């Protein structure tokens, strides 16, 4: 990585955003063939695809959620909020919702704590004398930690399913090898107490690398002078990290929280591969999995759409919650950067 890249990262992470409005539009333009055909193709074509395949299904889903449609018959009845009433009284869906919420609380939090810690060590955790820098071999750790990001989620889940295999898995092999005989044939994914934590671990394993890289880029945008000034004032590394670095990359942490929340509320790939049937006593069943099952194996499309609407509402609530917490804990004080 060259110095130019670093300065790009600096500009990217904290630089003032350009707020320059395009001045072209203010110029009067003739409706020539060139201009009209240009707008039709450049705006019309992508927009048509987007509206047909993304926005239109979203709107339809909200409508279907109020019907008793089973998909393969032409007629159906509008039943208002009946599906949602049914959902509240559906113990399996409520179980799935509880699991989803647990994942959405634990996974983003743990991932961000790990990723932030590693990013700080790698960028500013080095010697407390001389230049502010990361610890030795930091690029090795950076490259290795990022590996999981380039592995498809389904493959991550498959690898870990084999790792956790009761008899042939590496984990129990190592544990019994170390003398913990109670782990011989211990079914990590087959026990109610461990199935969900293990699933969360696998999701975190796959997510840490990317967010670590994101935070590294952001921390590189913190001016070295600020950190040096803190050091002259007697702040140690831990103090600098907590009081200087983290407040300055607040916005990046907020973005990371929202992305991770959206991913954790989905989690479909992981649960589907680790425990296709929903786990022991539905302990790893999540909303998306139950939705998929309701729609594509039971054919209850109206009911499944209602689940989709609930999932979307929870996703939006999660994002709103992150914004509110960030605001309430002082994010509003930095008017210039908010």
């Amino acid at each position, binding site marked *: *990585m060259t110095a130019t*890249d670093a300065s790009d*990262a*600096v500009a*990217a*992470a904290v630089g003032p955003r*350009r707020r*320059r409005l*395009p001045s*072209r*539009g*203010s110029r009067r333009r003739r409706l020539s063939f060139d201009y009209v055909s*240009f*707008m039709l193709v*450049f*705006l019309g074509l*992508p*927009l048509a695809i*987007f509206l047909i*395949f*993304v926005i239109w*299904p*979203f709107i339809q*889903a909200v409508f*279907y959620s109020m019907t008793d449609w089973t998909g393969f018959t032409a007629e159906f009845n509008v039943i208002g909020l009946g599906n949602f009433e049914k959902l509240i009284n559906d113990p399996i869906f409520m179980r799935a919702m509880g699991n989803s919420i647990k994942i959405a609380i634990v996974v983003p939090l743990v991932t961000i704590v790990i990723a932030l*810690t*590693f990013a700080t*060590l*790698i960028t500013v955790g080095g*010697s*407390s004398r*001389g*230049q502010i820098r990361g*610890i*030795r071999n*930091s690029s090795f750790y950076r490259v*290795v930690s*990022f*590996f999981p990001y380039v592995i498809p989620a389904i493959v991550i889940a*498959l*690898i870990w399913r*084999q790792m956790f295999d009761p008899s*042939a898995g590496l984990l129990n092999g190592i544990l019994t090898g170390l003398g913990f005989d109670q782990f011989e044939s211990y079914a990590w994914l087959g026990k109610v107490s461990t199935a969900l934590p293990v699933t969360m671990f696998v999701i975190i394993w796959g997510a*840490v690398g990317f967010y670590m890289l*994101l935070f590294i*880029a952001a921390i590189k945008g913190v001016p070295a002078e600020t950190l*040096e000034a803190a050091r*002259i004032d007697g702040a140690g590394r831990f103090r600098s990290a907590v009081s200087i670095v983290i407040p300055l990359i607040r916005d990046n942490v907020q*973005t990371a929280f929202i992305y991770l929340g*959206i991913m954790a509320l989905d989690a479909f790939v992981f649960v*589907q*591969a680790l425990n*296709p049937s929903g786990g022991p006593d539905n302990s790893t069943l999540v909303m998306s999995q139950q939705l*998929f099952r309701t*729609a*594509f194996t039971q054919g209850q499309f109206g009911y499944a*759409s209602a689940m*989709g*609407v609930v999932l979307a509402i929870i996703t*939006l609530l999660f994002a709103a919650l992150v914004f509110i917490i960030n605001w309430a804990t002082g994010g509003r004080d930095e008017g210039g950067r908010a």
Partner: protein
Amino acid sequence: MTTVTSTGTPAPPVAAPGRNGETAGGDRAVATVSHTVLILWSIIVILPLLWTLLSSFKTSSEIFASPFALPAEWSFDNYVSAWSEAGIGGMFLNTVIVVGFALVLVMLLGGMCAYVLARFAFPGRRAIYYLMLAGLTFPVFLAIVPLFFVLRNIGMLNTLPGLILTYVAFALPFTVFFLYSFFRGLPEEISEAAAVDGAGEWRTFFQVMLPMARPGMASVAIFNFLGLWNQFLLPVALNTDQDNYVLSQGMAGFASSAGYAVDFGSLFAAVVITVVPVLIVYVIFQRQLQGSVSQGTMK
């Protein structure tokens, strides 16, 4: 690489005098703890991958005999059977076709859309922007049921072109958002100059603006490639014809079939076949990727 964090002035070597001896000792302790933690994490990351590679050379009975033992003979039988019998070869080809077409299309359409949104004023511009934001935030699961019927009604369910179009549609918001800020940053004078020289809107875009946007396009293309290569829900729900399966579906097949029916040797081999090409590309291009992540944070 490790020392670029402070590109500016060198640090004044005037840390609190009298604390120096103590700091050196503290440094060593902090460094030891940091390295221990990071090495432990590196092991947690690398060990499963190495174990998968090792297991891919074992026979199924060897896999069940012991998780540690080396294979009796290093043969590529598992790879052969994964590639042909489990059908990974065909799925690999399908994935390359779908991801290739979708990537080119989404970069072209996304670039065009972002360019218009960023540099032209017209009624409804903000509305389109917010629609894109909605496409980025709402879960794909909300759309999946109606999408199934949209595709069925236009006769594209279970076809590769249908899958390509949905990939493009769902990758579009991210692409537009990223390139939007990129096109905004390009200097106004250049397109003015092109217009003065008589270039129409089409020519200005393809011969002037697009080449200038190349660094931004490259970053988005990397992320879109990884995102599309890893796509799971869309193919599983919308592409149920066995002949059209993409790699992630083949992998899911291993996950859902009952334990005793799985050929574990070819499972491991299939995993290696899926991971290794991307991992090699990553190790070669990891510096560029690091750069793109830093640009990605500017949204």
